[in-house]
Protein backbone atom coordinates (compact mmCIF):
# COMPACT_ATOMS: atom_id res chain seq x y z
CA UNK A 1 0.00 0.00 0.00
CA UNK A 2 2.67 2.48 0.99
CA UNK A 3 4.06 3.57 -2.37
CA UNK A 4 4.98 7.00 -1.01
CA UNK A 5 5.68 8.28 -4.52
CA UNK A 6 9.43 8.05 -4.39
CA UNK A 7 10.51 10.94 -6.60
CA UNK A 8 14.02 10.84 -7.97
CA UNK A 9 16.22 13.16 -5.95
CA UNK A 10 16.64 16.54 -7.54
CA UNK A 11 13.39 16.54 -9.44
CA UNK A 12 10.68 18.73 -8.07
CA UNK A 13 7.71 17.50 -10.03
CA UNK A 14 4.17 18.66 -9.52
CA UNK A 15 3.49 18.86 -5.82
CA UNK A 16 -0.15 18.98 -4.85
CA UNK A 17 -0.09 20.45 -1.42
CA UNK A 18 -2.71 18.16 -0.07
CA UNK A 19 -2.74 17.76 3.62
CA UNK A 20 -4.54 14.61 4.61
CA UNK A 21 -4.67 15.44 8.31
CA UNK A 22 -5.84 19.01 7.81
CA UNK A 23 -8.58 17.84 5.44
CA UNK A 24 -9.84 15.41 8.01
CA UNK A 25 -9.56 17.88 10.85
CA UNK A 26 -11.58 20.40 8.85
CA UNK A 27 -14.29 17.80 8.33
CA UNK A 28 -14.40 16.97 12.03
CA UNK A 29 -14.69 20.67 12.89
CA UNK A 30 -17.69 20.91 10.58
CA UNK A 31 -19.19 17.80 12.14
CA UNK A 32 -18.95 19.45 15.58
CA UNK A 33 -21.29 22.17 14.32
CA UNK A 34 -23.68 19.43 13.21
CA UNK A 35 -23.46 17.76 16.62
CA UNK A 36 -24.25 21.04 18.34
CA UNK A 37 -27.09 21.75 15.89
CA UNK A 38 -28.81 18.47 16.71
CA UNK A 39 -27.62 18.73 20.31
CA UNK A 40 -29.65 21.91 20.72
CA UNK A 41 -32.74 20.15 19.43
CA UNK A 42 -32.15 17.20 21.75
CA UNK A 43 -31.89 19.68 24.60
CA UNK A 44 -35.27 21.13 23.63
CA UNK A 45 -36.71 17.61 23.43
CA UNK A 46 -35.37 16.72 26.89
CA UNK A 47 -36.68 19.90 28.50
CA UNK A 48 -40.21 19.54 27.08
CA UNK A 49 -40.26 15.86 27.84
CA UNK A 50 -39.55 16.67 31.48
CA UNK A 51 -42.46 19.10 31.42
CA UNK A 52 -44.97 16.93 29.49
CA UNK A 53 -44.04 13.30 30.28
CA UNK A 54 -47.53 11.89 29.64
CA UNK A 55 -48.00 13.62 26.28
CA UNK A 56 -44.57 12.41 25.16
CA UNK A 57 -45.47 8.87 26.18
CA UNK A 58 -48.72 9.01 24.22
CA UNK A 59 -46.93 10.60 21.27
CA UNK A 60 -44.24 7.91 21.25
CA UNK A 61 -46.90 5.20 21.36
CA UNK A 62 -48.45 6.62 18.19
CA UNK A 63 -45.24 6.18 16.18
CA UNK A 64 -44.57 2.99 14.22
CA UNK A 65 -41.77 1.07 15.98
CA UNK A 66 -41.48 -1.31 13.03
CA UNK A 67 -40.85 1.45 10.49
CA UNK A 68 -38.50 3.22 12.89
CA UNK A 69 -36.62 0.00 13.61
CA UNK A 70 -36.43 -0.86 9.93
CA UNK A 71 -34.95 2.55 9.20
CA UNK A 72 -32.42 2.00 11.99
CA UNK A 73 -31.29 -1.24 10.36
CA UNK A 74 -31.18 0.42 6.93
CA UNK A 75 -29.05 3.34 8.15
CA UNK A 76 -26.62 1.24 10.20
CA UNK A 77 -26.16 -1.10 7.26
CA UNK A 78 -25.53 1.85 4.96
CA UNK A 79 -22.91 3.07 7.42
CA UNK A 80 -21.23 -0.32 7.20
CA UNK A 81 -21.14 -0.22 3.40
CA UNK A 82 -19.54 3.25 3.41
CA UNK A 83 -16.87 2.01 5.82
CA UNK A 84 -16.34 -1.06 3.61
CA UNK A 85 -16.10 1.14 0.49
CA UNK A 86 -13.09 2.97 1.96
CA UNK A 87 -11.32 -0.34 2.52
CA UNK A 88 -12.24 -1.43 -1.02
CA UNK A 89 -10.90 1.80 -2.55
CA UNK A 90 -7.65 1.58 -0.61
CA UNK A 91 -7.20 -2.01 -1.75
CA UNK A 92 -7.72 -0.89 -5.32
CA UNK A 93 -11.03 -2.72 -5.70
CA UNK A 94 -12.72 0.13 -7.53
CA UNK A 95 -15.74 -1.81 -8.82
CA UNK A 96 -16.53 -3.21 -5.42
CA UNK A 97 -16.12 0.25 -3.90
CA UNK A 98 -18.61 1.75 -6.37
CA UNK A 99 -21.13 -1.03 -5.76
CA UNK A 100 -20.88 -0.54 -2.01
CA UNK A 101 -21.46 3.18 -2.43
CA UNK A 102 -24.37 2.55 -4.80
CA UNK A 103 -25.86 0.28 -2.16
CA UNK A 104 -25.43 3.04 0.43
CA UNK A 105 -27.24 5.55 -1.75
CA UNK A 106 -30.00 2.97 -2.33
CA UNK A 107 -30.30 2.61 1.46
CA UNK A 108 -30.66 6.37 1.73
CA UNK A 109 -33.48 6.17 -0.83
CA UNK A 110 -35.14 3.35 1.10
CA UNK A 111 -34.86 5.35 4.30
CA UNK A 112 -36.59 8.33 2.72
CA UNK A 113 -39.37 6.14 1.27
CA UNK A 114 -40.04 4.73 4.74
CA UNK A 115 -40.00 8.24 6.14
CA UNK A 116 -42.49 9.36 3.49
CA UNK A 117 -44.82 6.46 4.37
CA UNK A 118 -44.55 7.35 8.05
CA UNK A 119 -45.14 11.07 7.57
CA UNK A 120 -47.93 10.26 5.12
CA UNK A 121 -49.75 8.28 7.81
CA UNK A 122 -49.38 11.19 10.23
CA UNK A 123 -50.63 13.67 7.61
CA UNK A 124 -53.57 11.36 7.02
CA UNK A 125 -54.50 11.77 10.66
CA UNK A 126 -54.44 15.52 10.27
CA UNK A 127 -51.02 15.88 11.88
CA UNK A 128 -49.55 18.37 9.44
CA UNK A 129 -46.88 20.79 10.71
CA UNK A 130 -48.35 24.25 11.02
CA UNK A 131 -51.94 23.05 10.67
CA UNK A 132 -54.87 24.21 12.78
CA UNK A 133 -55.39 20.66 13.97
CA UNK A 134 -51.86 20.31 15.32
CA UNK A 135 -51.93 23.72 16.98
CA UNK A 136 -55.27 22.80 18.59
CA UNK A 137 -53.93 19.67 20.29
CA UNK A 138 -53.13 19.78 24.00
CA UNK A 139 -49.88 21.71 24.42
CA UNK A 140 -47.68 18.71 25.25
CA UNK A 141 -48.85 16.75 22.21
CA UNK A 142 -48.49 19.62 19.79
CA UNK A 143 -44.93 20.14 21.08
CA UNK A 144 -44.15 16.43 20.75
CA UNK A 145 -45.29 16.28 17.13
CA UNK A 146 -43.65 19.62 16.41
CA UNK A 147 -40.30 18.27 17.63
CA UNK A 148 -40.91 14.97 15.84
CA UNK A 149 -41.40 16.70 12.48
CA UNK A 150 -38.61 19.23 13.05
CA UNK A 151 -36.00 16.69 14.17
CA UNK A 152 -36.79 13.83 11.79
CA UNK A 153 -37.25 16.42 9.04
CA UNK A 154 -33.86 18.04 9.62
CA UNK A 155 -32.35 14.57 9.81
CA UNK A 156 -34.06 13.63 6.54
CA UNK A 157 -32.51 16.69 4.88
CA UNK A 158 -29.14 15.43 6.08
CA UNK A 159 -29.84 12.00 4.59
CA UNK A 160 -30.56 13.57 1.20
CA UNK A 161 -27.44 15.77 1.37
CA UNK A 162 -25.26 12.85 2.49
CA UNK A 163 -26.52 10.63 -0.33
CA UNK A 164 -25.93 13.42 -2.86
CA UNK A 165 -22.37 13.90 -1.61
CA UNK A 166 -21.74 10.16 -1.88
CA UNK A 167 -23.06 10.17 -5.48
CA UNK A 168 -20.66 13.01 -6.27
CA UNK A 169 -17.75 11.07 -4.73
CA UNK A 170 -18.73 8.03 -6.83
CA UNK A 171 -18.37 10.23 -9.88
CA UNK A 172 -14.93 11.42 -8.72
CA UNK A 173 -13.86 7.82 -8.18
CA UNK A 174 -15.02 6.87 -11.69
CA UNK A 175 -13.06 9.80 -13.08
CA UNK A 176 -9.97 8.68 -11.19
CA UNK A 177 -9.84 11.87 -9.15
CA UNK A 178 -10.31 9.98 -5.90
CA UNK A 179 -8.08 6.93 -5.71
CA UNK A 180 -6.71 4.33 -3.35
CA UNK A 181 -3.74 6.60 -2.66
CA UNK A 182 -5.76 9.81 -2.35
CA UNK A 183 -9.05 8.94 -0.77
CA UNK A 184 -9.62 11.62 1.86
CA UNK A 185 -12.65 12.95 -0.05
CA UNK A 186 -14.37 9.57 0.30
CA UNK A 187 -13.32 9.35 3.92
CA UNK A 188 -14.78 12.79 4.71
CA UNK A 189 -18.00 12.05 2.84
CA UNK A 190 -18.14 8.84 4.87
CA UNK A 191 -17.67 10.79 8.10
CA UNK A 192 -20.68 12.93 7.19
CA UNK A 193 -22.72 9.82 6.47
CA UNK A 194 -21.77 8.29 9.82
CA UNK A 195 -22.90 11.47 11.63
CA UNK A 196 -26.28 11.09 9.92
CA UNK A 197 -26.38 7.53 11.26
CA UNK A 198 -25.26 8.72 14.70
CA UNK A 199 -28.09 11.24 15.00
CA UNK A 200 -30.62 8.56 14.06
CA UNK A 201 -29.16 6.21 16.71
CA UNK A 202 -30.41 8.74 19.30
CA UNK A 203 -33.59 9.82 17.50
CA UNK A 204 -34.91 6.27 17.24
CA UNK A 205 -35.11 5.36 20.97
CA UNK A 206 -36.09 8.88 22.04
CA UNK A 207 -39.09 9.12 19.71
CA UNK A 208 -40.16 5.54 18.97
CA UNK A 209 -39.32 3.62 22.11
CA UNK A 210 -40.56 5.82 24.93
CA UNK A 211 -44.16 4.62 25.19
Amino acid sequence: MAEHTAMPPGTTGPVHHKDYHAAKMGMWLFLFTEILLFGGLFLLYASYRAKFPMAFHAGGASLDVFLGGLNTVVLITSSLTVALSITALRRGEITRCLWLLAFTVACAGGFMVNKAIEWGAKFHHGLVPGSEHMAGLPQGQSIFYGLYFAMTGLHGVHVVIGASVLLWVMLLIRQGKVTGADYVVLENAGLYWHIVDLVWIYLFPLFYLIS
Partner: protein
Amino acid sequence: MTGTDSDTSASMYTGTGEAHAHAPLSYRFLTAVWVGLMVLTAVTVGVARVDLGYFNVLVALGVASCKALLVIFFFMHLKYENLLIKGMVLTAFVILAIAIGLTFVDIGYRY
Protein backbone atom coordinates in the same frame (compact mmCIF):
# COMPACT_ATOMS: atom_id res chain seq x y z
CA MET B 1 2.67 0.89 9.94
CA THR B 2 0.66 0.47 13.06
CA GLY B 3 1.62 3.71 14.81
CA THR B 4 -1.39 5.90 15.33
CA ASP B 5 -0.29 8.94 17.23
CA SER B 6 3.34 9.51 16.44
CA ASP B 7 3.49 9.76 12.68
CA THR B 8 1.92 13.12 11.99
CA SER B 9 5.00 15.23 11.51
CA ALA B 10 6.79 12.68 9.39
CA SER B 11 3.96 12.28 6.94
CA MET B 12 2.39 15.70 6.81
CA TYR B 13 3.35 16.60 3.26
CA THR B 14 3.88 13.55 1.17
CA GLY B 15 2.27 15.33 -1.74
CA THR B 16 -0.05 12.47 -2.59
CA GLY B 17 -2.38 12.68 0.31
CA GLU B 18 -1.13 9.35 1.48
CA ALA B 19 -0.30 10.49 4.95
CA HIS B 20 -2.49 8.09 6.83
CA ALA B 21 -1.16 5.86 9.52
CA HIS B 22 -3.34 2.83 9.71
CA ALA B 23 -3.89 0.02 7.25
CA PRO B 24 -7.45 -0.21 5.92
CA LEU B 25 -9.77 -2.00 8.34
CA SER B 26 -10.63 -5.48 7.15
CA TYR B 27 -14.06 -6.33 5.75
CA ARG B 28 -14.40 -8.96 8.44
CA PHE B 29 -13.71 -6.53 11.28
CA LEU B 30 -16.12 -3.88 9.99
CA THR B 31 -18.81 -6.51 9.53
CA ALA B 32 -18.25 -7.64 13.13
CA VAL B 33 -18.84 -4.04 14.28
CA TRP B 34 -22.07 -4.03 12.25
CA VAL B 35 -23.19 -7.27 13.95
CA GLY B 36 -22.55 -5.58 17.30
CA LEU B 37 -24.67 -2.60 16.26
CA MET B 38 -27.49 -4.89 15.14
CA VAL B 39 -27.42 -6.79 18.46
CA LEU B 40 -27.56 -3.51 20.38
CA THR B 41 -30.50 -2.35 18.23
CA ALA B 42 -32.35 -5.57 19.10
CA VAL B 43 -31.50 -5.05 22.78
CA THR B 44 -32.84 -1.51 22.81
CA VAL B 45 -36.11 -2.53 21.10
CA GLY B 46 -36.46 -5.50 23.46
CA VAL B 47 -35.77 -3.56 26.65
CA ALA B 48 -38.30 -0.88 25.64
CA ARG B 49 -41.05 -3.54 25.92
CA VAL B 50 -40.23 -4.11 29.59
CA ASP B 51 -41.48 -1.45 31.96
CA LEU B 52 -38.55 -0.31 34.06
CA GLY B 53 -40.03 3.07 34.85
CA TYR B 54 -37.46 5.82 34.79
CA PHE B 55 -34.70 3.33 33.95
CA ASN B 56 -36.15 2.76 30.48
CA VAL B 57 -34.78 6.13 29.38
CA LEU B 58 -31.40 5.51 30.98
CA VAL B 59 -31.07 2.07 29.37
CA ALA B 60 -32.17 3.43 25.98
CA LEU B 61 -29.64 6.26 26.15
CA GLY B 62 -26.93 3.92 27.46
CA VAL B 63 -27.42 1.46 24.60
CA ALA B 64 -27.58 4.32 22.09
CA SER B 65 -24.30 5.67 23.46
CA CYS B 66 -22.65 2.24 23.14
CA LYS B 67 -23.77 2.19 19.50
CA ALA B 68 -22.48 5.73 19.05
CA LEU B 69 -19.07 4.72 20.42
CA LEU B 70 -18.87 1.78 18.00
CA VAL B 71 -19.72 4.05 15.06
CA ILE B 72 -17.32 6.82 16.14
CA PHE B 73 -14.35 4.65 17.02
CA PHE B 74 -14.47 2.10 14.20
CA PHE B 75 -16.68 3.29 11.30
CA MET B 76 -15.37 6.84 11.72
CA HIS B 77 -11.84 5.54 12.45
CA LEU B 78 -11.44 7.75 15.53
CA LYS B 79 -9.49 4.99 17.28
CA TYR B 80 -6.80 5.34 14.62
CA GLU B 81 -6.62 9.14 14.52
CA ASN B 82 -3.93 11.22 16.18
CA LEU B 83 -4.31 12.65 19.66
CA LEU B 84 -5.22 16.11 18.38
CA ILE B 85 -8.41 14.92 16.65
CA LYS B 86 -9.25 12.63 19.56
CA GLY B 87 -8.91 15.59 21.92
CA MET B 88 -11.07 17.77 19.68
CA VAL B 89 -13.85 15.19 19.53
CA LEU B 90 -13.69 14.71 23.29
CA THR B 91 -13.91 18.48 23.80
CA ALA B 92 -16.97 18.76 21.55
CA PHE B 93 -18.81 16.02 23.42
CA VAL B 94 -17.79 17.38 26.82
CA ILE B 95 -19.22 20.77 25.84
CA LEU B 96 -22.45 19.09 24.75
CA ALA B 97 -22.55 17.15 28.03
CA ILE B 98 -22.06 20.38 30.01
CA ALA B 99 -24.89 22.07 28.11
CA ILE B 100 -27.24 19.12 28.69
CA GLY B 101 -26.09 18.59 32.29
CA LEU B 102 -26.51 22.22 33.35
CA THR B 103 -29.92 22.37 31.69
CA PHE B 104 -31.01 19.40 33.76
CA VAL B 105 -29.72 20.95 36.95
CA ASP B 106 -32.23 23.69 36.18
CA ILE B 107 -35.10 21.52 34.94
CA GLY B 108 -34.71 18.99 37.73
CA TYR B 109 -35.70 21.54 40.35
CA ARG B 110 -38.28 23.38 38.30
CA TYR B 111 -41.30 21.07 38.15
